[in-house]
């Protein structure tokens, strides 16, 4: 050390850094704040994990698995065929971490009531709610069955799902169909028009798309997403380009299956009328990539971020199936005419799986229009994407961002880095009305709450025997 040039990191009083500089020293003064949300015990647990060889090794493995996953769209089938646990069972999947009926948010209850009527287990939403409250229906996070859904994320046995296969691992991931905007089930609407549309999607649309998708013999989704990023999408809150690209591939295949002309017309109208049609496919692709990275012991890489309308939850590769939860952060956004922040439901849905995979808010530089939701500029969008690199294990070279000189999008959130810097993952999101059935009332930007990451750090430290007072 005596022969080296002293190069100091100053952590704390800025004056010490100024003095060092005045004396001719090299010094970097940190913009320090108490780490791990200010919990000294968690801060110490975190410190013991920084640069820990087992964690570093595990992260290499998990991140490599995420990178090498090859999500391919292969099929459209009813949920009960994809998820055999649903067959013959009164099981309904929802977004986010586990939650009991009594505690569910308004839109989620509305969506579940609609799904119960859709399944024919009750005649009206009112009866459906009674049935749900009676305990006769089982509920589980979609994530527990390899599935994801935006907003309420409700998937019942008869609903059709997209099937995405990771060609590398063979693992399957699923998502439901996007119903469009306005009064839709995922925002808790469950009126006759909503259920009629669901029946049409499950019947005619899924029936037409199934042979078309199969005919494609596996549509590779990573290149499609990569291309959409170069066309102004971040494939979470903006899917206009990706929907067009999907349609470009689907339409010839669909026509080749020689469907009835009226069916073809209705399918094409439905898909072209919904700029978010690709969102659910994007989510299933992200789920496939992240499930590939799950279950690596001691890895601190986040494999899921999801909200159930009450809590925000994350799952981490090295801590198995555990959820780390905290109340969702408020959304900084803009509202449709006639609505305000007072009408907003807490942040909701599995769609933050896109951010977990390095898309959405992490790829905001690709989609400058999105940042206008918080009154920002394209420069702010770029800054968001750059900042996320500070909390990730690496970047995904398949997802490049023109505004970052075609630099790769940040991916593989490291819970240690989030807890250490206090930089919370940024998430682009729609805003649902807190009452069931009103629908989307705005959109904006939010963040994943810090306590989830701090809890995960403590759990990882515990797993290495590094939690307690003296380690």
């Amino acid at each position, binding site marked *: *050390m*005596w022969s080296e*040039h*002293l*190069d*100091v*990191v*100053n*952590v*704390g*009083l800025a*004056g*010490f850094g100024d*003095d*060092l500089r*005045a*004396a*001719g020293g*090299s*010094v*970097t003064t*940190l*913009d*320090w*704040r108490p*780490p791990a949300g200010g919990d*000294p015990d968690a*801060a*110490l647990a975190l*410190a*013991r994990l*920084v*640069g*820990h060889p087992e964690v570093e090794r595990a992260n290499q493995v998990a991140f490599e698995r995420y990178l090498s996953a090859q999500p391919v769209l292969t099929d459209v089938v009813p949920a009960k065929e994809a998820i055999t646990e649903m067959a013959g069972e009164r099981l309904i999947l929802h977004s986010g971490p586990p939650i009991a009926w009594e505690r569910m948010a308004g839109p989620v209850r509305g969506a579940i009531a609609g799904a119960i009527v859709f399944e024919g287990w009750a005649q009206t939403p009112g009866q459906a709610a009674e049935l749900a409250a009676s305990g006769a229906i089982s509920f589980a996070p979609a994530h527990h069955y390899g599935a994801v859904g935006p907003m309420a994320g409700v998937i019942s046995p008869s609903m059709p799902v997209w099937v995405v296969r990771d060609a590398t691992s063979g693992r399957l991931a699923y998502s439901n169909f996007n119903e469009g*905007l*306005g009064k839709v089930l995922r925002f808790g609407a469950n009126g006759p028009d909503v259920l009629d549309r669901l029946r049409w999607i499950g019947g005619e649309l899924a029936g037409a798309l199934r042979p078309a998708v199969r005919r494609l013999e596996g549509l590779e989704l990573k290149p499609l997403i990569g291309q959409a990023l170069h066309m102004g999408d971040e494939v979470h809150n903006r899917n206009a380009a990706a929907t067009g690209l999907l349609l470009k591939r689907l339409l010839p295949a669909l026509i080749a299956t020689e469907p009835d002309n009226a069916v073809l017309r209705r399918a094409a109208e439905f898909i072209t009328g919904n700029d978010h049609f690709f969102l659910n496919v994007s989510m299933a692709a992200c789920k496939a990539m992240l499930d590939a990275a799950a279950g690596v012991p001691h890895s601190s890489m986040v494999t899921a971020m999801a909200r159930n309308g009450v809590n925000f939850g994350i799952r981490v590769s090295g801590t198995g199936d555990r959820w780390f939860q905290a109340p969702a952060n408020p959304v900084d956004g*803009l*509202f*449709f*005419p*006639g609505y305000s922040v007072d009408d907003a439901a807490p942040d909701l849905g599995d769609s933050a799986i896109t951010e977990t995979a390095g898309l959405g808010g992490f790829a905001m530089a690709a989609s400058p*229009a999105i940042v*206008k*939701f918080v*009154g920002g*500029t*394209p*420069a702010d969008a*770029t800054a968001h994407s*750059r*900042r996320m690199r*500070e909390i990730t294990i690496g970047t995904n070279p398949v997802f490049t961002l023109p505004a970052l000189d075609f630099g790769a999008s940040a991916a593989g959130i490291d819970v240690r*880095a989030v807890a*250490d*810097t206090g*930089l919370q993952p940024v998430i682009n999101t729609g805003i649902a009305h807190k009452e069931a059935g009103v629908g989307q009332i*705005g959109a904006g930007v939010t963040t994943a709450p810090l306590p989830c990451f701090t809890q995960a750090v403590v759990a990882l430290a515990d797993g290495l025997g590094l939690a307690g*007072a*003296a*380690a």
Partner: protein
Amino acid sequence: MSSIREHRIYPNRYQDSVALMALSAALAELPGIQAASVVMGTGTNLDNLREAGLGEVDAGPGDLVVAVMGDEPATVRALELADERLSEQPSSRGAGGEVAAPPLRSLRQAVEENPAHNLALISVPGPYAAAEALKALRLGLNVMVFSDNVPLDQEIEIKRFAEERDLLVMGPDCGTAIVNGLPLGFANVVRRGRIGVVGASGTGMQEITSRIHQLGEGVSQALGTGGHDLSAEVGAISMLRGLRALAADDGTDVIVLLSKPPAETVAKAVVEEARALDVPVVICFLGADPAAFGGDTPGVRFAATLAGAADAAVALVRGADRPAESPAEAYEQVCFAPGQRDLRGVFSGGTFCYEAQLLARAEGIRAASNTPVAGNTMPADVAVSTGHTLLDLGDDVFTRGRPHPMIDPAPRDERLLAEAVDPATAVVLFDVVLGYGAADDPVSGLLEAIEQARAVREGPAPAFVAHVCGTDDDPQDRSAVVARLREAGVLVAENNAQAAVIAARMTP
């Protein structure tokens, strides 16, 4: 004023809904506007306008609609503003503006950005300090922890971890270090030289390194260990490591070790280690009896005072066996009034208070102190002095919720005034600490307090005796400070030990 509804249609004008929502929000904020919406004229949007009370609008999906509701002047203004915004060209700032790199928040970020970093200086609140230190060590950095109030088990954890990684930990509670010529924390500007210092006391190290400089020699490295390092629990991990590191350093010819009395077993281990080295070592364990550790040998000399340790080291580095006797500062005995009999010390440096107590005890003065040495006692009330009293104003009992008196001298100056006006006070003893980290002007407030005391007090004023810890190269300039004090009639001694002895002898 009655409210009206107005709208304007821009045919075949497309704008992104996000941009329109931002414009809607801007219009709605205008005074006098109750509702405003800018949308593309799709069926759904027109329905929304109606439901929001903005009226019936006949427009097509490709048309842009601005609809507002409010008082009449406001609606006119809103439509004007909308027109302005909709015809605006995008500003160049938004697209191409330079984005400043966000500041770094964590040690990991700093090391990733610049792998040349090799030391972390940590001064965050005590409950977080060990965690930052541990991160720094895990990232391969040496560490100085200025923070105090770090739990002892955490201090032991980081020091043991540093041992495994062959890294240096200075502190916790390490106020001073000089590494490769650079000041860390509170440190004085001293020339580089061939004397290395390892110390468990910040102000003690400042005194020794400053005196080495004053005597014309210089310092290779000054490594702090923190005040708890020589406890039985910690076992001098940092001092032993610093000792070995300096012994192996080609730039160090003489080593000085400094501590308040260490735990006996720990002291023995340190002395044993020192005796085994080829490099001569001067040991200053303030208040400990050298005989307990076998006394002087050619390789190890014991010094009773901070200044004595510097003197011995300077002699050794110059090839002399013993330091030359330094002439005592001349002083004239002052005539005190009959009731004037107390020695009152008000220190900003804890080790100066400690050393002064030891030397005053040797002169037969038993004093009260908030940090008493053996034989002295705690004052009944730290806020009011009675009898001989020597106070460390940097101690927790005085600094809760306020800066250390080395940084903000005002509280010390106030206490000095209180002591100086007390009719029982014969001699006021104090220190002035200079250097990086210390107050830019530590003297003006002191001089005001002294002047005020002389003005207020009836009968003879007390004698003021001081020492100034620092060098002429410090930002505050020691010579200039000494000159100002002497001009005000303060007896300024060469060093703390000398000041303490003079003050004790002057006390009737």
